[in-house]
């Protein structure tokens, strides 16, 4: 009886009521990487409908009206023996068809050219690496201490083109934020380039667009487009290493380092693993497990204790932590803002 209950997407990402949540739709788009293609899609859909309608009308007309009088008995011989100049209909058919196709072709070429590269030089570059089954994000800076790494939640300044360098760590994935542009594959051993630009602030949901294994369907990501000053504040916060652990969470940190640090990094601590997502600022993210769970206390505990129940096949194993140890790790994680 409660299956109708769905939590609103905007609230689900916890970005407050002011930011619009964009669903996974390519028919309503919000940036110059996507808009020319959206116009083309709508144009071609309307053209196709018009052509289908025209053909249907001509067929019906041909069947019902345009019959040679008295020819009911010899349908098979009618077409070849009729003296009327039927050839002109070939031209009448060909000219508008070729015309429409040429228009569609030119429009397509222009659309591809428009989305091929941004008109201005990109405001920043983000390295996005597809993993089974999450997205690693690296924001390179001008110096080594201006780099930082995050996961699954891309922040960009609104209204500016952002270059995306796509890589894959294991198998082929595909980067796809429908409202911001078409898919680009992430291929092991290659670096593919694409770009995005959001013209309106909001949260844009995306999803791996190439089947990549068992949990492909749970490999989501979001793009959060913020006003420039909010983006800069976020960037500065991400650059900070984890705070010195307070006495109350030191036991939790020790547990984390021992049980989690081989795969996860918390910048500025002994935890330096690179197999799983960087957790230095995990509390700043809206979801866990690549867009699968809202990042709540319950979700963190359930995920840490038994990720295999929630996302079977994920590379993270179930842990053998006791309830008290789980609570300790959780209290430490909650300081990673």
């Amino acid at each position: 009886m409660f299956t109708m209950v769905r939590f609103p997407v905007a609230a689900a990402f916890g970005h407050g009521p002011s930011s619009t949540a964009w669903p996974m739709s390519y028919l309503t788009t919000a940036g110059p990487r996507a808009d020319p293609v959206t116009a083309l899609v709508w144009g071609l859909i309307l053209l196709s409908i018009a052509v289908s309608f025209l053909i249907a009308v001509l067929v019906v007309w041909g069947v019902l009206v345009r019959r040679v009088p008295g020819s009911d008995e010899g349908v098979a011989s009618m077409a070849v023996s009729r003296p009327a100049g039927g050839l002109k209909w070939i031209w009448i058919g060909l000219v508008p068809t070729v015309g429409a196709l040429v228009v569609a072709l030119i429009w397509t070429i222009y659309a591809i050219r428009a989305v091929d590269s941004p008109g201005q030089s990109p405001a920043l570059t983000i390295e996005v690496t597809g993993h089974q089954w999450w997205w690693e994000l690296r924001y390179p800076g001008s110096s080594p201490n201006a780099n930082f790494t995050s996961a699954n939640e891309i922040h960009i300044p609104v209204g500016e083109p952002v270059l995306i360098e796509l890589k894959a760590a294991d198998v082929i994935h595909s980067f796809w934020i429908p409202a911001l542009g078409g898919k680009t594959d992430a291929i092991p051993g290659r670096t593919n380039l694409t770009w995005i630009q959001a013209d309106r602030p909001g949260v844009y949901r995306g999803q791996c667009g190439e089947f990549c294994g068992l949990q492909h369907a749970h490999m989501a990501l979001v793009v959060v487009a913020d006003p420039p000053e909010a983006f800069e504040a976020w960037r500065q916060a991400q650059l900070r290493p984890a705070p010195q652990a307070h006495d109350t969470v030191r036991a939790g940190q020790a547990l984390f380092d021992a049980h989690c640090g081989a795969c996860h990094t918390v910048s500025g601590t002994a935890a330096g693993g690179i197999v799983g997502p960087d957790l230095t600022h995990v509390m700043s993210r809206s979801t866990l497990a690549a867009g699968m769970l809202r990042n709540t206390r319950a979700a963190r505990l359930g995920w840490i204790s038994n990720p295999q129940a929630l996302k079977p096949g994920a590379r993270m194993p179930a842990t053998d932590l006791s309830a008290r140890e789980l609570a300790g790790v959780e209290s430490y994680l909650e300081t990673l803002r």
Partner: protein
Amino acid sequence: MKRTLAVSGLTALGLVAAALLSGCQGPQGDDGGPDPRRGAVLVEREACGACHQIPHIQRAVGRVGPPLAGMARRTIIAGYLPNTPDNMKRWIQSPQSVAPGNAMPDMGLDDRDSRDIAAFIETLD
């Protein structure tokens, strides 16, 4: 014939669902009594399903704590408390005060939230 049956079946199902939904709509106000529907929304928002398997909640497939199917018919909560609405609310709001050190965290829910979640769980029979 098959199709007619299917259509009428679907229609009946829709009517039943509508009746059930309107039946449990309940008062929405702050002091309008327990609202199980709101409770279900909160269960989804707080991600209770990361630890529990919960009927009617999307992707509630966790296997850390016990599954909540049939919770309305169980007599004891968390191995300690008689299963009354007040106790369920108390357990949901502050599991650490009922059974210190157990794995279920205090989620910081207020009176109304925990009461509504308890009301939702009381529908799981």
